[in-house]
């Protein structure tokens, strides 16, 4: 499997596709963080608790935070690394040559998956390091222990999330014979989960629990809960819910509305373990989704005939 891993990793890192997408992520992430730092300089009070974590979750003005940005664009990078992993080997006619060598088919797929994951890891880690660098430059002091621990956990969760999308891309590359179809399916899925599901959730919630500005608070809450429930089917929402408690230490898994309705809920930061518990179900959900994609890709590929004509 090592041979497959190193070859695929070299392919990824040298590909134009990877270069362009990481460039986009880098530029936008850099900009939003840069603006965040400017916000600190105008309002030094905001830099009091967990300033480094804030760099990841808040952004001034209309720009999305780094977190939402990663939740939105990260999948595109991941899914594009995987969508032609297997079917392009069929169209190039390399698959029968490679699988006539003494390696198992699952080792081949695993090597491809791990190489993709390593590539994503390199991107995410270098962006986080870049943000650290910018922060150090602007704030003048390094992140403290709890912040580093939380960022470490965040990195692992982010990789798990991107790993899901990579596994989905690889699944499509096994299911579809042509790379054009698998690319289309991959981008469609991405759009569905990042955009359409949010719209659908809103529309359904409006239909089932109609609310107006003067509706009672309970109606609003039910409306919100229904919407959140539908969104739980999206890995994007799962990721955001799983990472918010990690990056926002005072977050307790309640919406702003719920907080308003239940005065007296403390807003002081939770310890890391407690924060993890808040996002635990979402984490397990993400892991399950990734495993399902992977298992499906295995099942389809293991017994497929390796014929290139």
């Amino acid at each position: 499997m090592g041979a497959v891993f190193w070859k695929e990793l070299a392919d990824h890192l040298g590909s134009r596709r990877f270069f362009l997408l990481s460039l986009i992520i880098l530029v936008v992430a850099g900009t939003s963080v840069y603006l965040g730092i400017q916000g600190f300089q105008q309002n030094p009070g905001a830099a009091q608790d967990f300033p480094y974590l804030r760099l990841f979750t808040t952004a001034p003005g209309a720009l999305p935070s780094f977190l939402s940005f990663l939740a939105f664009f990260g999948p595109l990078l991941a899914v594009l690394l995987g969508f032609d992993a297997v079917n392009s080997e069929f169209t190039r006619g390399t698959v029968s040559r490679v699988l006539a060598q003494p390696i198992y088919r699952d080792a081949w797929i695993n090597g491809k998956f791990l190489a993709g994951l390593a590539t994503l890891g390199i991107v995410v880690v270098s962006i986080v390091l870049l943000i650290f660098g910018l922060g150090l430059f602007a704030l003048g002091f390094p992140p403290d222990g709890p912040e580093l621990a939380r960022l470490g956990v965040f990195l692992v969760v982010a990789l798990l999330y991107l790993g899901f999308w990579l596994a989905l891309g690889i699944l499509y590359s096994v299911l579809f014979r042509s790379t054009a179809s698998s690319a289309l399916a991959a981008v469609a899925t991405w759009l569905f989960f990042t955009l359409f599901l949010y719209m659908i959730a809103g529309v359904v919630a409006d239909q089932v629990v109609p609310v107006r500005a003067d509706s009672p608070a309970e109606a609003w809450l039910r409306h919100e809960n229904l919407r959140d429930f539908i969104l739980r089917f999206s890995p994007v929402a799962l990721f955001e819910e799983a990472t918010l408690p990690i990056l926002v230490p005072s977050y307790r898994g309640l919406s702003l509305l719920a907080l308003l309705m239940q005065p007296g809920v403390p807003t002081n930061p939770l310890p890391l373990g407690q924060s993890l518990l808040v996002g635990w179900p979402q984490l397990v959900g993400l892991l399950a989704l990734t495993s399902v994609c992977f298992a499906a890709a295995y099942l389809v590929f293991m017994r497929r005939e390796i014929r290139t004509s």
Partner: protein
Amino acid sequence: MIVEAKGLKKEYRGVRALDGLDLAIAEGEIYGLLGPNGSGKTTTILILLGLTEPTAGAVRVCGHDPVREPLAVKRLVGYMPEKVGFYEELSAVENLRYITRLNGIPEGEARRRIAEALEQVGLREVAHRPVATFSHGMRQRLGLADVLVKRPKLAILDEPTSGIDPEGAAQILDLIRRLRDEAGMTVLLSSHLLHQVQRVCDRVGILHRGRMVAEGRVAELTASGGYLARVGRASPRLRARLEAEDWALAVEEVGPGELALTLAEDGRPALLRFVAEEGGVVLELRPKQPTLEEIYLRYFRE
């Protein structure tokens, strides 16, 4: 027997690709699997390699079962697919390097084997060029090098000469023969051109609709087709005399004063005598070698 298959059957949703095929190849043999398009050559090869599973039947390759021990088989067998593909942006050497790594061959040894294999197939000068710049013939030869770096006990080559000019094909076949003679490699190659591969194959098997319709040495299969002759300056009298004989199976006028005839083997002396007596000339007299097509047809009639 390095390859042994009994009663192989393969069905694709109602299409019967193999229909009870038996195959046995001895060590050190060059065996040609012949047959028209769609006769089941590639399917047989995929089953031998464990790249597809037979619907029924038993297979052993180098003493292992490709379905249950695919890795043991793949360690010993080199395979060149019919549409051989490479990583286009990598060079010839890099493509081969990937294969040696997948086989766990140590780097130093791998470098030596790759250089040697590229030398053998005549690709040394282009070793570091990306495969994207290779012609079809060069790719085909690189496919052969890909098999060679593995030093397999058995090489399975699916249409190694397809789409290659006659001279290139002859070179490839000579190389295959040399490898067998020098390295003791067993070779199974498929083709639909009997005349091209008959020179190198010790034995051939002819497939049709998933069945072995004939098997044996090339000479045995192509023998007993009678003789063909062409006669010039033939007078009408000569023609009449020839047509009266039993051994002249067919007489045909192909040009002014020129006859083409098919004759049985025992008619040769008489033909020469008749032609001399009537003032004609024998332009050509050769054994009639049946084409692959004729062999198929002959075996179907039986």
